[in-house]
């Protein structure tokens, strides 16, 4: 959907930020809009995608995995094959080019699992920008390999020791850096959350996933899929693939949230299914919060979905009913992770495994005449240790 002047999606979105950031957000919104309308910018970005990201990403039909999903035909949009291993690069390259356009030389980024941090460090290396990545101290320990990758790429990684020491606090710390250094620095936010224009801009950079996939699937099958599925943490890969299908009323859009140990346990990251409307990190959306409006800690086996907020456009799609959202537990996600690995030879990211678990459920409901498109948002290399521990494979 299109947003109003201050970036609302229905009653969600907007800007809840210190006044100090408003002029930078205005400048960014303007830079984004002029870039969207500038053929030279679009050409430069498409060339980078063609020669660096490896776009267009292919579609793989999952013939053997289909048996676990009620026999439905399943098509995987292979964002895992992008450079750096996930969809994150689409947004990062776009925003890095916008940073240069605004004449800024320093980017800061937050990261949970480290995927967005690695992608940001990569883009900074490619385009000659200084890069600082904020990462919760807990996450730097859980994802030591990605910390090393970022350092190899020339980025500085700052462990965040406040609050819960995870993604939420890394975002707080990045915002504090931005308030202080906004003249010289662009905050390269990694998902479709945050204040306007981030939810719109990040969606626009990921829309390429949906645009490619829609054309590919029409060519392959001659018709639109019955459902498009994607995992949702902040929701960037989901909004990227959904946005091309929102106008196709016959296509169900299904977002799979991290149900952790189950909704009833309270230990989950299913913000839409298990949260309430509120304000977090500059935007009005659904939030996991207590009765005083304090943000609750989220829980998920997948660091990339472990976030107590969600993009405001998802909150809008949820309340309007255009998209549906379900929670997938850690256990269900890990089962799907193993099934795809063994039936297709593709090890998915644990984040992505939530979407695959959703396909197993919905496939059983709809049966073998259904066609599904799944955004295979990332590969599982980074998760080998977590998965080995989970399945008791000695390292």
């Amino acid at each position: 959907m299109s947003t109003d002047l201050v970036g609302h999606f229905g009653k969600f979105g907007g800007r809840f930020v210190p006044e100090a950031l408003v002029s930078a957000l205005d400048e960014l919104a303007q830079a984004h809009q002029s870039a969207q309308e500038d053929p030279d910018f679009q050409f430069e970005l498409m060339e980078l995608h063609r020669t660096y990201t490896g776009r267009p990403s292919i579609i793989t039909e999952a013939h053997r995995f289909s048996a676990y999903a009620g026999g439905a035909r399943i098509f995987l949009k292979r964002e895992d094959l992008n450079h750096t291993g996930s969809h994150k690069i689409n947004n990062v390259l776009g925003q890095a080019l916008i940073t240069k356009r605004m004449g800024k030389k320093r980017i800061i980024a937050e990261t949970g699992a480290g995927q967005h941090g690695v992608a940001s460090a990569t883009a900074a290396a490619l385009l000659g920008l200084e890069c600082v990545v904020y990462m919760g101290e807990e996450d730097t320990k859980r994802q030591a390999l990605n910390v090393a990758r970022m350092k190899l790429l020339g980025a500085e990684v700052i462990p965040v020791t406040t609050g819960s020491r995870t993604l939420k606090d890394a975002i707080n710390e990045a915002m504090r850096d931005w308030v202080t250094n906004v003249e010289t620095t662009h905050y390269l936010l990694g998902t479709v959350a945050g204040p306007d224009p981030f939810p719109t801009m990040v969606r626009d950079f990921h829309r390429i996933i949906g645009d490619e996939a829609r054309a590919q699937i029409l060519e392959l099958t001659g018709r639109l899929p019955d459902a498009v599925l994607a995992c949702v943490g902040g929701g960037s890969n989901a909004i990227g693939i959904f946005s091309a299908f929102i106008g196709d009323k016959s296509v169900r859009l299904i977002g799979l949230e991290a149900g952790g140990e189950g909704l009833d346990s309270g230990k989950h990251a299913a913000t839409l299914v298990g949260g309430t409307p509120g304000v977090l990190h500059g935007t009005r959306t659904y939030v996991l919060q207590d009765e005083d409006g304090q943000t609750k800690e989220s829980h998920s086996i997948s660091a990339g979905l472990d976030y107590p907020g969600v993009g405001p456009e998802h909150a809008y799609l949820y309340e309007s009913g255009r998209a549906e959202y379900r929670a997938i537990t850690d256990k269900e996600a890990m089962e799907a992770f193993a099934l795809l690995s063994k039936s297709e030879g593709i090890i998915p990211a644990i984040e992505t495994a939530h979407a695959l678990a959703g396909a197993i459920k919905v496939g059983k409901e709809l049966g073998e005449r259904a066609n599904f498109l799944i955004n295979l948002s990332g590969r599982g290399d980074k998760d080998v240790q977590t998965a080995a521990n989970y399945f008791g494979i000695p390292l």
Partner: protein
Amino acid sequence: MNLLGQSFEIAREENRALLIGYLTAGFPNMERCKSAIKAMIDGGVDLIEVGFPYSDPVMDGPVIQQASEIALANGVGAKEVFEIVASSTVPTLVMSYWNPIEKFGVDAFAQELRDAGGCGVITPDLTIEESQDWIKATQDSKLDRVYVVAPSTRDARLSKVTSNCSGFIYAASLMGVTGTRSALSGAAESLVMRIREVSKTPVAVGLGVSNGQQASEIAKYADGVIVGSAFIKLLLENGDEQEANRSLTALSQELSEAVRR
């Protein structure tokens, strides 16, 4: 004229700036918070700003973050914030990030704060564009509405934001978060001058102000001086209630003398 307006009026007649002291509600605990506020008032603080502790305080540096974490661990919510406000003997405002207010209920928050004797609210992350409900609620409850403006706020916007402020305008002395700084930038004075061009509402300067020398500089051109982290630091450094309160009173006296022109 309301309480805040009267306070600025009196200070103007006395040829001094107003001294505003910040403390996080329920820090270090409920009782010590009340006695600390009394100690600050004894030393000459004119207005008290009570912070509503929040889990994600993006405008705050490490000192106030730590105080907020301690207060939250003490179970501080809106009820406790109102209790602290009610205990203060000088005009008192609340500083709150937006989500706790919205979660409590915008109208109910304004009304209950008024009932507790509060006179206004500073909202550091609420933009004018998102303020419709808040403006109505504060008008109904006759609370002053204080927004923060920054050196990066452009002139056109400065006029828009300040026209929605009442009581006073909070001018951030620098680009950054709360916390003591050894030196202040020249940004504060030029921001205050720009505000004077568009508004007659009193202007108070905060962020980074921690000692008499800085307060004295600011008092030359602003109507109020806001000090927060420096007070919190004294409480963090000193576990003994009486000693800590004596140091709060001493800092308040130093600042209170410094704001006299």
